[in-house]
């Protein structure tokens, strides 16, 4: 038995051990960094959710862990009318909350649907046919749509305020839906254009030879294939419109207020109770948190669409 034959079997010579130590160090470093950033990402969420079950002394003493540090109380949720004991009774804050929640839901769902509809059609058209509107060709039309991304909302805000006043659309859901559709449309077109460009044209050609019209081919053959991209675009639009605050704050007052406006209006006053604020924030972010956890795949797909060509 020679030393040369021994080394490949037992990897415990000086050089191998050094290598293993370096490997272990790099592992620790990688997982350490990952865990630290996970903490940074999740702690604010954890803090908000747990604070909604705290009472005044718990907040002041900085208790962090429920059951271990402090006894959870549903004070915050009671102020929203959503705690177990108040759930059965009529409650004004709850009615208010549900109204805002429904507004947010209706506005974000409709705006995303509308944007997806208009955006997929436009993106499909631009990826398949060549157009001429006056001097504008396909590339110009695409650029026209995408350039809307650069437009800061504040430029449109005040003209829209005046226009909506004249059209009696101020403080209506329709007004918000139109505006939100406009803001997410470029993103939808971006994602969908990428999506359609990846589908070979031979598919439609075969369908057209079989006698389908262009629209039938689009609806029955292309859309099902592009479905993952559509889901991605829809969810991304949903996130953006659900969270939108600026337009909602300017253009709504009593009827069409969305959830962010309600949250913001409570943060203004200094004497607000932490636990009720935390409960409200939790309720406002919960739908999207669930969406994010369940459909993370699609969100990442949507955002990666433009990155890699």
């Amino acid at each position, binding site marked *: 038995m020679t030393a040369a034959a021994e080394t490949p079997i037992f990897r415990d010579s000086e050089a191998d051990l050094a290598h293993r130590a370096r490997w272990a160090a790099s592992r620790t470093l990688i997982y350490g960094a990952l865990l630290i950033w996970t903490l940074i990402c999740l702690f*604010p969420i954890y803090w908000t959710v747990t604070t909604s079950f705290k009472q005044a002394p718990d907040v*002041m003493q900085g208790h962090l862990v429920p059951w271990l540090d402090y006894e959870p109380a549903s004070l915050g949720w009671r102020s929203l009318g959503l705690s177990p004991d108040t759930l059965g009774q009529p409650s004004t804050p709850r009615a208010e909350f549900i109204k805002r929640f429904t507004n947010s839901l209706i506005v974000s769902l409709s705006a995303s649907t509308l944007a997806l509809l208009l955006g997929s059609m436009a993106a*499909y058209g631009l990826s398949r*046919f060549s157009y001429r509107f006056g001097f504008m060709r396909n590339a110009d039309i695409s650029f026209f749509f995408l350039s809307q991304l650069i437009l800061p909302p504040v430029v449109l805000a*005040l003209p829209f305020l005046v226009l909506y006043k004249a059209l009696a659309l101020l403080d209506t859901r329709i007004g918000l839906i139109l505006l939100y559709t406009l803001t997410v449309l470029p993103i939808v077109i971006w994602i969908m254009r990428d999506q359609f460009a990846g589908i070979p044209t031979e598919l439609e050609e075969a369908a057209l030879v079989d006698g389908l019209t262009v629209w039938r081919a689009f609806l029955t053959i292309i859309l099902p294939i592009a479905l993952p991209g559509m889901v991605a675009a829809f969810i991304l639009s949903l996130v953006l419109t659900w*969270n939108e605050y600026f337009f909602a704050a300017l253009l709504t007052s009593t009827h069409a207020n969305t959830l962010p406006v309600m949250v913001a209006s409570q*943060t203004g006053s200094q004497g607000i109770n932490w636990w009720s604020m935390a409960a409200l924030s939790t309720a406002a972010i919960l739908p999207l948190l669930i969406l994010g956890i369940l459909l993370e795949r699609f969100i990442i797909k949507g955002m990666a669409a433009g990155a890699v060509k």
Partner: protein
Amino acid sequence: MSQQGDLLHVVTNDDLSSARIAFGRAIMWGSGLILVLMAVLQTGQVQGWWDLGLTNWRPTLYAYLTWAVCLCWGQVLTRGEQGKRALFVLPAVLFVVSLTVFPLLFGVLIALSDWNLSSVSGRRFNGTANLVRMWNDPFYWNALGNMVWYVLAILVEYAIAFGLALLLNAQIRARKFFRVAFLLPLMLSPVAVSWMIGKSMLEPRFGPVARFARWLGWDTPSFFGDPLIAKLSIMVMDAWTFIPFMMIMLLAGLQAIPKEVQEAARVDGASGWRGFWEVTFPLMLPVSVTAVLIRIIFKLKLADIVITVTSGGPGGATDTVTSFIFREYRDRSNVGYGTLLAMVYLVIIVIAMTILMKLADRLARPRT
């Protein structure tokens, strides 16, 4: 994408009857005429030429919608197959044009007038007086200056996002868990974030971050009192929500790089550090440029956090252009001046982005 000709080659023989074409033309022109008529009638109402009892511009809106539908339908009627193709893009074009181009033109008109919504005198044309006022408004220039700092902060965000993307791309377990955890901040509304972090975690007495700062030895932590620290706090909060966005784009870029490239570099004797700077980083340049540019666009809209946490304070140190104009309207109902400020901002953005995109184009082009 080819510039000329359709990607989808279809031969169609349209035989459109002349009656069909005539009907198509008729509805397009007819509805257009109704729209013009309606607009004239309503203008007359506003100018006081006659009184039709109309209280708002809804009738004109409905006439416009009718015209838009008739225009789309008329395309199909008069141009057959070509019209059906135009139908893909036409609705989106009509939608965007009517919701941006028209308000923008209207906005120029507002910008050149003295218009306070709360005063009874209504709109008065005052030419370039708003422009002169803007030139002498130190707060607007201050807000523009702040925007430069906020945009520069993107470089730090980019570095962190790149690091995270590299970590997620490494050989790790529970990759999906980390990816979801890293993504979550992006899901949260800036307004909720401004309460969660800005108003409670950074609260100087009971906030956990303040406690942590005291434990580290900072006796009187205050995150929004000092101008510099306040600006940094806003940057951190904004970065917290948007780093996942850049991270995911960069991660997609990293995953698109073939593994062989890295292996080849290693075989050639490149260490991890050199391998990164001379192989990975140059390959990632196009993706990086796209991610940073989109991030800049989003950053230029930054307002929600500033409005809800500091409302521009202390002394305008955290003000963004958007939050400044928002307060200009909220506090003084000054539509004319606010619109002018926004228009100037738009012009600056368009110029800056054009230059940036030109530079980025040169940077991202593969070096030969």
